[in-house]
């Protein structure tokens, strides 16, 4: 069965089921094209579906994403592969792309699962929950997260002990350990690359003590603590479960920094930090929030007002990048920095530190084409061949790029970029 290669053809292939890929797929399908959306993860929705709120409007991120995600899953013109990855793409001619896709087994028959979660209840294995950014645990038989799409269980075979408890507990008997990897050759007329970005791993800056000091978090971990589907239902510091009183944000962690190889601005960290700080003021009215920054880049529509609003709410801003962090016996953290306005090196104690980690390229798409036809820019994002006149075009005619695959950008820009990619793709298909 595993040797069998299935063939299928669609008008368009969209790689990546985040907000950009999802939007591009919807645009194409609404114009009557048949679309295959390939998502590496167990659910579509990308990073946005896991966020708390969006800047600068403070709208609920999930409330924007979930209707979109449901529309994608139910659209008759869109086929979604989750747990699937593109291994190679070959351009046979104009409007003739052949893509090899590998779909990992979920060990659950998607159509039959009712998301009753009985398998989760009986599963004896507990591991870190990657969808909650390791703040809490999950089972090896699990539904990725409450608003996942498809909302279907999966077996984490790496950690599964094959005890069979879930199989016995499953009412529709949809758990199937005989599933194998499926291979497909997909023929399409066009390809949209929407593979998104990677977050900077702060272990690369040992001075900040991430991974060693438990109360040093990444912004994505804080995002989960603030989200409507949050694990603790309040803000707790991971070291001892205390509600923090003095929270610090360290901006430019892994951005604008030659020493870790990312000299450019990530474009979103200032704003998401301002957003989180405001949400924290709401969640913990007595807490002090301090943002340590080099420059606050509030360049977009409504951003400067958002910054002023943050200042008005009493969030402290200190100009100076944090140099090092040390831990006290109580688990508090001492930040050493130079206050640029005072010209003095200072130390300040906080009980929780959030590292505003930056945006790094996802280099996966660069290896899709065997001979490197899909070119990268100098920072390893997908190169935009004509960035001013046709921003969605790549170095391969008929392959378009959407969202953060081409560089750091925020959610509205990602959606705009998806619109550009889908309309360019339609023009290409109609030529």
């Amino acid at each position, binding site marked *: 069965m595993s040797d069998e290669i299935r063939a299928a053809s669609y008008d368009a292939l969209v790689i990546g089921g985040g907000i950009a890929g999802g939007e591009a797929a919807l645009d194409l399908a609404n114009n009557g094209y048949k679309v295959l959306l390939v998502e590496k993860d167990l659910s579509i929705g990308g990073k946005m579906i896991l966020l708390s709120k969006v800047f600068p409007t403070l709208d609920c991120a999930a409330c924007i994403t979930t209707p979109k995600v449901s529309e994608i899953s139910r659209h008759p013109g869109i086929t979604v592969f989750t747990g699937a990855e593109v291994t190679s793409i070959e351009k046979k001619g104009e409007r003739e792309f052949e893509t090899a896709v590998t779909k990992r087994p979920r060990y659950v028959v998607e159509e039959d699962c009712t998301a009753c979660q009985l398998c989760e209840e009986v599963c004896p294995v507990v591991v870190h929950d990657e969808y909650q950014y390791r703040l809490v645990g999950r089972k090896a038989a699990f539904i990725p997260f409450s608003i996942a799409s498809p909302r279907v269980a999966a077996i984490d075979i790496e950690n599964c002990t094959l005890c069979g408890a879930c199989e016995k507990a499953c009412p529709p008997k949809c758990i199937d350990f005989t599933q194998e990897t499926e291979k497909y050759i997909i023929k399409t007329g066009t390809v949209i690359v929407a593979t998104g970005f990677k977050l900077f791993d702060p272990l690369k800056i040992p*001075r900040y003590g991430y991974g060693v000091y438990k109360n040093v978090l990444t912004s994505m971990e804080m995002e989960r603590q603030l989200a409507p589907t949050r694990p603790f239902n309040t803000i707790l510091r991971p070291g001892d479960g205390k509600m923090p009183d003095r929270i610090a944000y360290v901006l*430019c962690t892994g951005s*604008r*920094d*030659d*020493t870790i190889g990312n*000299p450019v601005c990530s474009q979103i960290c200032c704003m998401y930090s301002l957003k989180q700080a405001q949400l924290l003021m709401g969640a913990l009215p007595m807490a002090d929030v301090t943002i340590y920054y*080099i*420059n606050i880049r509030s360049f977009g529509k409504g951003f400067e007002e958002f910054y002023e609003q943050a200042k008005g709410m009493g969030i402290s801003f200190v100009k*100076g*990048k*944090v*140099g*090092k962090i040390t831990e006290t016996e109580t688990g508090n953290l001492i930040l*050493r*920095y*130079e*206050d*640029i306005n005072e*010209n*003095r*090196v*200072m130390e300040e104690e906080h009980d929780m530190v959030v590292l505003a980690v930056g945006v790094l390229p996802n280099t996966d798409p660069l290896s899709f084409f065997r001979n490197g036809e899909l070119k990268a820019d100098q920072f390893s994002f997908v190169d935009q061949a004509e960035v001013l006149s046709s921003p969605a075009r790549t170095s391969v005619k008929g392959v378009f790029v959407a969202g953060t695959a081409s560089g750091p950008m925020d959610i509205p820009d990602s959606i705009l970029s998806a619109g550009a990619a889908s309309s360019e793709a339609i023009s290409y298909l109609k030529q």
Partner: protein
Amino acid sequence: MASINTEYGRDLRKYGGFDFNACYNCGTCTAVCSLSTEEDSFPREMVRFSVLGMEDDIKSSLKPWLCYYCGECTTHCPQTANPGELMMSLRRWLTSVYDWTGLSGLLYRFLPATVTAMILAAAAVIAFSASRDFNLPEIMKAGHYFEMIAIGTVLAVIFIPNLIRMWWFTMLKPGIKVPAANYFKAAADLFIHMFTQKRARDCEDNNFRWLEHFLLVIGYLALLFTTVVLDWFSSSSLFVIILGYLVSAIVFIVTIDFVSGRIRKKKEVSRFSHASDWMFVVWLVLMGLSAFAVRLFIDLGWLENNLWLYLLHLTVLVQWALIIVPFGKWTHFLYRSFAMYFHSVKSQVK
């Protein structure tokens, strides 16, 4: 109100400064520096002054001397602006500012001037020896006198006026009012820092560099004492002879390690070498090695037939005493100790 002077930055590059214009004022350098304190925060302030060309503020500052160059700031600088090497360049520039003759600045900025001076010194040694018909005992006697006269002259003509200038720039001109008694109270600090460089032990890198440097200073001063006061080359005291061998060996062994560090460029501190840095360490190696060899040849009875060796030693000595000591990197020994002293005098006000 200071005005911006972009010329200054261009001038500073000749002293070894790098891309300090790349600085975007994040303060990482100051925050990671283990010597930086709330009262004395550096190096970012110095980077800022350099970019803006605020010469007077740099001239009156002791901060460049408070840095012992572990290189942490350069390692972590997100803009690769190399603040560590900038601090080093500022020390070279300050050396030239303190020097009333102006020769320091010329030699630092213009390598051919240094080379010419070195050649002239060598030629003078050869010419002098020729005028004495290459008579070894006479030349050796003259060499010994030269050492004593050179030390006295350099001290009286160069160092004392320059230290007074440094005092004027950093203490009097900025209008720092301290009771005279402070100068006595802080006197111990002058000698502690001069002989131990104990502040460098607080640097982020390991203590081995400090130990090497400490051994070198002690070895060098002991070698000076042994040759000048105890007259090592003519001495027949076994103690003096062994002491001389020991201290000259310390000097060249430690400095050979310094030279190889600058070649390997593994540590931040030895990655960038200005011509003056090379000259300083290489001449120290030559001094230690040639002194060691001269005494060895005396003990083995070979020196009469190998006059060239003593002439080599004397040439190195003359170049060292007339060029590198008064106008080159050697001066950091004095200026750094006095900077620590003045700093201590100032802090006793509070």
